Every structure is written in structure tokens, then in C-alpha cells.
């Protein structure tokens, strides 16, 4: 995402929620103490991601499909008042006669392009594919350097390597320092980077564990759950992986497992991760249980976020206001977000349809919405006045 991370936002913020039954918007009062729910948009659609374009504050894209109907992208150019379907949604090329081709099952991820390229967007799909729009999301073209690369199938593996509802390309990152420098995360596949706008790709997984692969230290095939670039420093990335929490400081090509510093009884497995808008060393995760059969809920039913203020050298538990008894929360990879207010607001959504907020950078939490459908994604939005 294009960054103006150093600036402080004042006034109301909105949360864009993608859910299994449609899109919703939570709008705050100026103090963020009151929240109003709007929607649903496209009731009955599985909305994997809904994103506001930070470059104009009014263009929104929504990745949607239904249980029956195939994938598409809906667009709004008036901050969600009206929506229109993309003229040409992301789709793989038609295979030659007699060959098996790929079909987009769902668009999983949407990323606005660099600030210098106002109409460019990227989309990541299931199965793993990368698409680009140069007209604000109206038409989409495959990034052939990835989608048609002869090694793509080796990178992403087969269906047994996929997550339960399909392999995914997520965490599509456009460096705020260089429009040509892209990072992608794939479950499975790992982290890859391109320095030429997607023409060529290099795996970037050294240092990351892949405990589910018998090969020691594989080049790719990892399972990053969420990759984030610091809004402050484009050389610093963090990831919450299936196998731990990591940080990398480029130009190094090796991730460091900062999750080793988490309390052992909690571990360092989870789905989401979010970074402070103005402090390169502050980051939050929401750990989940990785006991024998991987319950993927808050460890011991005691819900908590964890924060590091020193780049991962130490972690502090943040559970005030969160359920500490039978708090079996599951927070998916796109479901934790942060705003740019002076005291940054942290937000997460659960598969049980709850939205929680902290206005003091995680020190205390309050529930701001409940009874919503299973939440797939939470994004902070600052609509233009």
C-alpha cells in the first residue's frame, strides 16, 4: 500500500469488513468512541477483501463470489454509495486445446498500487495468481511473469499443499519506495519478490521454517500467513508464518525468527500481523493454539494480542477487556488492522462475527460489533471529506 506513514490522522475512521455473507462498513465518530454499522453490501456474497484507495479516498474495490457464482470484483467510485462490476475480472488465460488450464476460484486479496500510479491495483487469487489493473479495477490482466512461469506449479505445490479452501496469493505488497518492487505471500509457496514489476520473481524464504516439508531449508513451499512492510521503512518486513513470527531487514535475504522471544506457553503461531504506522519496531500479532491437531483458536481460550516495541526482541501480552475464560477466538490473516491516529487504533475481527477495537495501541480492548457473519478481512479506511 502506498504509505504516508509519518503523518497522523485526525477524526473519524472506518473499518471495511469482508465477511462470508457480504461486505460491511463500520464508521466511527470523531473520537472513535461510537461506531455505526452500514451494509450489508452484496448480501450473500463471500467478500474476501474490501479496500479503499488511499490515493483518492473514494474508490473502493470488493473481491466477491457466492457459493454458486464465480469470482468477480465490484467497484465503487463514490465511497461505497454505488457499486458496479468490473468489466473484466481477474481470469487466467484459456489453455491450449487438450491442456488443463487454471481457473480463478476467488479473488482473495486487493492492493492499491504505488502513489505514483494512481489507477494501478493488484489482485491475488485462489489458486495462486497475480493480476494487475491499470484502470482503477475496471479491467484486469494476468501478470504473466508469475502466472505463466514454468516453475509456478513447483512454487505453489499441488492441492495437498493448499489451505482448506484453496491455495492463496495474499499480502501483495507494492514497496512504497519503488513502484517496481513487489512482494507476494503464498499459502503455500512462500514469499517471493520482483524488482521489475512482476516480470521476474525470486523466492525470499531463507531463515523461515517449513516444518511440514521433509526437505531441510527449502527454497520455496513455505506458508506465510500474513506479510507486512513497515510504512516507515520499506527495507523492513515482518511476517506471521505458519511456522513462527519473522522480521527481515533488507538488503538481507534472511528472515530472523523473532517469535522465539514469545512466551513458550503461547508460542508464535497465528494468522494476522499488523505494524505501527510510525514506529518501525512496533508490531502486533494475535496468537492461536497450534496443539496437536491445530485448533487455531486463542491458546487456552484466553484471548490476547501480543505487541513488540523493540522489533521482536521482546513481546508483551495485551488482554485487558478481552475474554479470559472461554474466549476461543479465531482471527484470520486479513483480520487485524491499525489506523494512523496519534494513539493508533487497533482492530480485529473474528470468525464469530465480532469486531474488537483498542484506542490505546492494544492496552485495552472493547467490542464494537457483534453478530456479524464470519469475518474474512478488516481494513482501515480514511474516506475523503
Amino acid at each position, binding site marked *: 500500500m502506498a504509505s504516508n506513514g509519518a503523518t497522523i490522522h485526525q477524526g473519524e475512521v472506518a473499518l471495511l469488513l469482508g465477511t462470508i455473507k457480504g461486505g460491511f462498513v463500520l464508521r466511527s465518530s470523531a473520537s472513535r468512541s461510537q461506531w455505526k454499522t452500514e451494509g450489508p453490501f452484496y448480501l450473500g456474497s463471500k467478500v474476501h477483501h474490501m479496500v479503499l484507495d488511499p490515493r483518492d479516498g473514494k474508490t473502493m474495490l470488493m473481491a466477491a463470489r*457466492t*457459493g*454458486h*457464482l*464465480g469470482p*468477480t470484483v465490484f467497484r465503487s467510485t463514490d465511497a461505497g454509495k454505488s457499486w458496479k*462490476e*468490473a*468489466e473484466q*475480472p481477474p*481470469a*487466467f*488465460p*484459456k*489453455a491450449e486445446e487438450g491442456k*488443463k*488450464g*487454471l*481457473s*480463478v476460484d476467488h479473488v482473495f486479496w486487493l492492493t492499491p498500487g504505488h502513489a505514483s500510479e494512481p489507477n494501478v491495483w493488484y489482485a491475488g487469487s485462489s489458486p495462486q495468481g497475480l493480476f494487475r489493473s491499470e484502470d482503477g479495477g475496471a479491467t484486469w490482466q494476468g501478470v504473466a511473469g508469475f502466472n505463466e512461469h514454468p516453475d509456478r506449479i513447483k512454487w505453489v505445490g499441488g492441492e495437498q499443499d493448499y489451505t482448506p479452501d484453496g491455495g492463496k496469493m495474499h499480502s501483495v505488497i507494492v514497496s512504497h519506495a519503488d513502484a517496481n518492487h513487489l512482494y507476494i505471500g503464498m499459502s503455500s509457496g512462500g514469499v517471493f519478490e520482483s524488482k521489475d514489476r512482476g516480470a521476474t520473481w525470486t523466492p525470499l524464504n531463507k531463515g523461515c521454517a517449513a516444518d511440514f516439508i521433509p526437505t531441510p531449508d527449502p527454497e520455496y513451499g513455505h506458508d506465510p500467513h500474513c506479510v507486512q512492510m513497515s510504512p516507515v521503512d520499506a527495507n523492513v518486513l515482518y511476517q506471521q508464518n505458519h511456522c513462527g513470527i519473522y522480521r527481515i531487514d533488507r538488503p538481507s535475504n534472511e528472515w530472523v525468527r523473532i517469535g522465539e522471544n514469545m512466551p513458550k506457553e503461547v508460542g508464535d503461531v497465528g494468522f494476522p500481523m499488523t505494524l505501527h504506522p510510525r514506529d518501525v519496531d512496533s508490531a502486533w500479532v494475535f496468537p492461536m493454539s497450534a496443539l496437536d491437531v491445530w485448533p487455531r483458536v486463542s491458546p487456552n481460550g484466553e484471548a490476547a494480542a501480543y505487541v513488540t516495541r523493540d522489533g521482536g526482541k521482546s513481546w508483551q501480552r495485551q488482554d485487558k477487556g478481552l475474554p479470559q475464560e472461554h474466549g476461543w477466538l479465531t482471527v484470520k490473516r486479513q483480520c487485524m488492522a491499525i489506523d494512523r491516529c496519534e494513539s493508533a487504533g487497533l482492530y480485529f475481527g473474528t470468525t464469530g462475527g465480532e469486531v474488537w477495537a483498542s484506542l490505546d495501541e492494544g492496552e485495552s480492548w472493547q467490542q464494537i460489533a457483534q453478530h456479524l457473519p464470519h469475518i474474512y478481512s478488516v481494513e482501515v479506511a480514511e474516506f475523503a471529506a
Partner: protein
Amino acid sequence: MSELSTKVCIHIPTHLSAYTGGESQVMVGGATLGEALAELDQRFPGIRFRFITEQDEVREHMKVFVDREQVFDLHTPLGETSEIHIIAALSGG
């Protein structure tokens, strides 16, 4: 496109009625299923991709019938009185 003068009827499920302005039946021309769906998509842009993949396959939870027989091939020929049913199959959750 076919020179058929008689148009065939496509029955549209509610899931796709937003594309047809609420119409549950649409008359189109075409000598094959593929041609009929191409005309359907020309009139109601985007509708085809919601139930036919980019590989020209019927999507997993959709079914297409020509004259009450389930078909999978867009080359399926149509007669002058053919009827096409697009059905949303069972898909729970």
C-alpha cells in the same frame, strides 16, 4: 453467430437475475450452447463468467441443461425449439 431465425429460451436462476434486470427467461440466438451464451453475455455483460470458467467449463456448483439433459460442452448443438436451463446446484453454508 448462427443464422437461426428462431431464438432459444434461456431460463435464468435468481442468482443471476441481477444481470438480466430480474428477467427469468431470455431469448437468444445460436446454433450451439456456446453461441447462445455468448449472445447472453453480450446483452448482459459479465453474466457468463459467473457460471462458466475461463476454461469454458461449467462452474462447480452450477449446472446447465439443454432440453432437460445436463451438458458440459459448449459445443452442444441447439435445435430451433431448444431450451436452456441454468441451475444453481445445491451449495450449503
